């Protein structure tokens, strides 16, 4: 779908680019909006899940007899209630194993049984009555440890894929990927300076404030309804149907308002369990995760270990870049975003010689799931740290070094394709000219920057647009709205139809109302579902014009649509007074019935996205505590449909990155148990930790969208880790190679550097 350009250049917009109030707003500020846990059904039971206390154990036997006898218990389920309908292999089978453990419990918190009871306290008691006979196995939670020969093996049949020759022994390394072009060895020979460093990052959780919640009801005939908070209710429907062995059409999933996802709600956890309990009890069952369960048993992102080597000439040209990216994704293969880490790591540079090798590794940790730009922030941290260090070694301003080597239109990207028009150079130049960049720094303060990249993609969307007789418009979309996308959908429809924004309402339809819609992820919704809205509006306009043509008795192609009116087009069309949308709608019962527009497609042509972040950090040299004193995000949005929500994405992503960089981490004990499964010790940033987050939206139109829109949601979490690490390095003179930059780590680094007499790496 090519960009619409007015003959004189950029398209002029009436609604897109303004900042109207969101349609779901009043419900959300008054407490009326219904989220996952806010629904109930008559006769509903409380569902609860029993979870493994062990990081790695064979489940010999599960005895549920006592629990079943407890008065008030209506259903108890285990692995026996989930026969394998998946064919026993692939990602779907792994999802089944994760939803309810089969032969083994692979991590602390892995579901092993569930109950449905008439009250929460009975359900709690029932869980205590279930006896599980475990054979505890050695475990491994660290990615480097898991890769070592002799590490506790999670799967006896896992032989590393993607290496030649095929390994003879099983290991925890599921796959090896390699990307790149040119000849890195030859490139390093041309280098005058080479920096090579190893990095580690800890797992972070998406940290949405709403725990997973599902309300299921299912009859003995297999007809089922599910209400849940998810980023993709069509995905939930398809996966649950397959896991439970029912026809997709029998399961209707309604998406509640969703209290944050950030990638963490792009799979199923409790939904199939709620359905299986409801089937067995033949009563509605509500399952809501506790916060502890959210941390222990829903998806964090990967922890990583990364090596980076980059070579440059004396005048600051990168000759070669090489990296090894080891990501653990929990107990199942293909869950870590290792390949996206490797693909995105060097994407912001114009490189003749580049190689990125990724390893997907399994560990006794929860099954990881996407987290905002999956895999990219960790890789970016490693690469942009080395870039900063190289700039210092070259005696070059880091920003000039980045500009000199920046990818541009026509650059062959590090992951393969050649870039079209991209905004990286523009964000770097804007950063250089930003007042923040020149502002003076106080004592113990340092400034850091980093540029980051995310792919973005489109995917499947299906939209229906209905026009009632008063000429107002309802748009039904199937993409869950996490951050205000309904407002963006209404705006694009209003823009296309030439009517005011508040004449359009958007709803998220349930799975029986529309064709398949992909999950709200990959920064795809405003781009892809938005484009479907535009095309559905164009479809409706065609029909409106046809009605006007029929009314006037002229050919359909002699009618054009302009600012909400059908008008005769051209001198031969005749002279008719324009018909408004309202007039055509009012007459519709007599001119052929209701008027609707549709569009369904798989959107492609999502433009890649770049951002540059600048950050000032103050480090207390006596305690190692870092405070963010100023932060600026500059990002290309293609076209900002609702600038406030675009800014919100920039700010939210940056702050999640700040949390990850400074304090958020999964802390495991020697027993393989998570030590900090709560908001008290899993420290996401609080309001008083932060300054205002300045934003600058650049608009370099995406040629793949009629308005030039690019996805904006994910890129903003990519640069913060590196920007902050660079700022801390500049404030302390110590280069830190581990995330998070927690005070004990930073203080230790400072103390060791003091002893060593100056700059060093920690």
């Amino acid at each position, binding site marked *: 779908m090519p960009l619409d350009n007015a003959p004189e250049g950029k398209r002029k917009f009436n609604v897109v680019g303004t900042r109207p109030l969101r349609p779901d707003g009043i419900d959300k500020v008054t407490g009326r909006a219904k989220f996952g846990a806010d629904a109930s059904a008559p006769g509903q039971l409380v569902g609860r899940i029993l979870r493994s206390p062990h990081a790695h154990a064979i489940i010999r036997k599960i005895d549920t007899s006592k629990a079943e006898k407890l008065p008030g218990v209506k259903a108890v389920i285990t692995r026996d209630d989930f026969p394998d309908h998946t064919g026993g292999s692939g990602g779907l089978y792994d999802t089944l194993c994760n939803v309810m453990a089969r032969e083994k419990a692979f991590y602390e918190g892995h579901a092993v049984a569930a109950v449905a009871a008439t009250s929460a306290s009975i359900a709690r008691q029932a869980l205590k009555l279930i006896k599980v006979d475990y054979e505890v196995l050695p475990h491994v939670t660290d990615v480097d440890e898991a890769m070592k020969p002799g590490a506790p093996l999670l799967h006896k049949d896992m032989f590393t894929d993607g290496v030649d020759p095929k390994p003879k022994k099983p290991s925890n390394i599921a796959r090896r990927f390699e990307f790149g072009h040119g000849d890195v060895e030859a490139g390093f020979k041309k280098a005058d300076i080479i920096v090579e460093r190893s990095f580690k990052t800890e797992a972070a959780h998406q940290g949405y404030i709403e725990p997973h919640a599902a309300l299921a009801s299912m009859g003995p005939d297999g007809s089922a309804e599910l209400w849940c908070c998810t980023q993709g209710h069509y995905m939930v429907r398809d996966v649950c149907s397959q896991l439970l062995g029912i026809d997709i059409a029998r399961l209707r999933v309604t998406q509640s308002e969703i209290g944050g996802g950030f990638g963490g709600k792009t799979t199923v956890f409790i939904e199939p369990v709620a359905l299986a309990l409801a089937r067995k009890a033949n009563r509605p069952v509500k399952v809501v995760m506790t916060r502890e369960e959210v941390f222990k048993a829903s998806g964090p992102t990967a922890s990583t270990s990364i090596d980076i080597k980059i070579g440059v000439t004396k005048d600051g040209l990168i000759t070669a870049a090489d990296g090894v990216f080891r990501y653990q994704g929990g107990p199942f293969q293909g869950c870590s975003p290792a390949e996206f880490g490797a693909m995105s790591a060097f994407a912001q540079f114009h490189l003749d010689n580049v190689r990125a090798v990724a390893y997907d590794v399994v560990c006794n940790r929860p099954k990881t799931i996407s987290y905002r730009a999956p895999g990219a922030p960790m890789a970016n941290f490693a690469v942009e740290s080395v870039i900063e260090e190289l700039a210092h070694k070259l005696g070059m301003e880091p920003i000039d070094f980045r500009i000199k080597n920046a990818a541009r239109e026509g650059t062959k990207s590090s992951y393969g394709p050649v870039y079209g028009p991209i905004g990286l150079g523009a964000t770097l130049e804007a950063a250089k000219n930003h007042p923040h960049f020149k502002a003076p720094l106080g004592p113990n303060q340092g400034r850091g920057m980093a540029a980051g990249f995310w792919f973005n993609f489109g995917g499947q969307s299906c939209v229906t647009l209905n026009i009632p007789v008063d000429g107002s418009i309802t748009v039904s979309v199937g993409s869950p709205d996490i951050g205000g996308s309904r407002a963006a959908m209404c705006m694009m429809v209003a823009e296309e139809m030439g009517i005011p924004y508040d004449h359009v309402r958007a709803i998220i339809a349930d799975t029986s109302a529309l064709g398949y819609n992909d999950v709200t992820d990959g920064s795809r919704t405003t781009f892809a579902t938005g484009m479907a809205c535009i095309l559905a509006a164009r479809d409706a306009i065609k029909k409106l014009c046809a009605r006007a043509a029929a009314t006037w008795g002229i050919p359909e192609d002699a009618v054009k649509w302009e600012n909400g009116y059908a008008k005769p087009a051209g001198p031969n069309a005749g002279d008719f007074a324009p018909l408004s949308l309202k007039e055509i709608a009012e007459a519709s019962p007599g001119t052929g019935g209701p008027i609707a527009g549709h569009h369904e497609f798989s959107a492609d042509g999502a433009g890649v996205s770049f951002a540059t972040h600048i950050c000032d950090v103050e480090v207390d040299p*006596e305690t190692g505590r870092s405070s963010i004193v100023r932060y600026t995000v500059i990002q290309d949005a293609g076209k900002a449909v609702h600038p406030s929500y675009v800014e919100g994405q920039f700010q939210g992503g940056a702050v999640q990155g700040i949390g990850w960089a400074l304090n958020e981490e999964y802390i495991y004990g020697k027993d393989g148990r998570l030590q*900090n499964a709560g908001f008290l*010790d899993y420290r996401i940033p*609080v309001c008083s930790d932060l300054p205002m987050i300045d934003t600058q939206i650049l608009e370099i139109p995406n040629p793949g969208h009629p308005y030039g829109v690019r996805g904006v949601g994910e890129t903003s979490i990519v640069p913060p880790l590196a920007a902050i690490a660079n700022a801390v390095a500049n404030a302390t003179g110590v280069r830190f190679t581990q995330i998070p930059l927690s005070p004990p780590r930073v*203080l230790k680094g400072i103390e060791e550097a003091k002893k060593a007499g100056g700059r060093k790496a920690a």
Partner: protein
Amino acid sequence: MKYERPTTLKAAAQMLAKEKGKAFILAGGTDLLVRLRTGFIEPDLIVDIKDTAGARSIQKTASGFKIGAAVSGAELGENAALKKAWPGVVEAANLIGSKQVQGRCTMTGNLCNASPAADSVPALVAAGAKAVVVGPKGKRTLAVEDVPAGPGRTSLKKGEIIESLILPKRAPKSGDAYLRFIPRTEMDIAVVGVGVNLTLDGKGIVTKARVALGAVAPTVVLVPAAAKAIIGTKLDKAALDALAAACAAACNPIDDKRGTREFRIKVAGVLARRAARIAYKRAGGK
């Protein structure tokens, strides 16, 4: 589980003494409810003492301040006289949790949870505060530092309830301060906490001092050596160095999710210096 809300402490003490199962006292409930909800405790009886006489009042007496067991952090912060006399204690109490938690949490509860990381306790110990205990055998008074017996354990006997905390009358030219280290700016448990209380003479020389540390040992510890390090000084660099060294020496912390042993020892000294300087300034020193 039963819930009772007696109107006298005596009745409360009787209920607690009589209960055969597990009984807990509820004042602010900000820890009790968390433990209850996470299944960490399964009480048979909860005795809410908020309606007992004096539980929610702060009385200024000739010998100091008497703070009822159910007085919330927010109420402490709103009492101008108390804040003026014992700014360090009030600040410490106001560091417990968020504004939401401040509306409920109490210093007595903070003390009775017997967490080594309790924020108000080092400040209370430094202040020389006392706890008035009511029990089946009558009243007794004990020093605050004698209440915690270990992590999560107190020296209180079955049926005993702390009725109030007593802060002594403020001597002239005195000041106190409490500082803690947390990685964020709010909503964290102290990784290290330091309470300092001191009195100066006319020349600005420290004549009396008490220093207490939190989160560096199984219980909050009073560090006489730290006090000794600054008594007789004007908090010059050497005195502060000696103070930091004494604090570090008194630390016996563990490595845990909140911080390393090494980090805690180092930061205890850093915070002691900073807290001492604040207390000194508050006492009128320059």
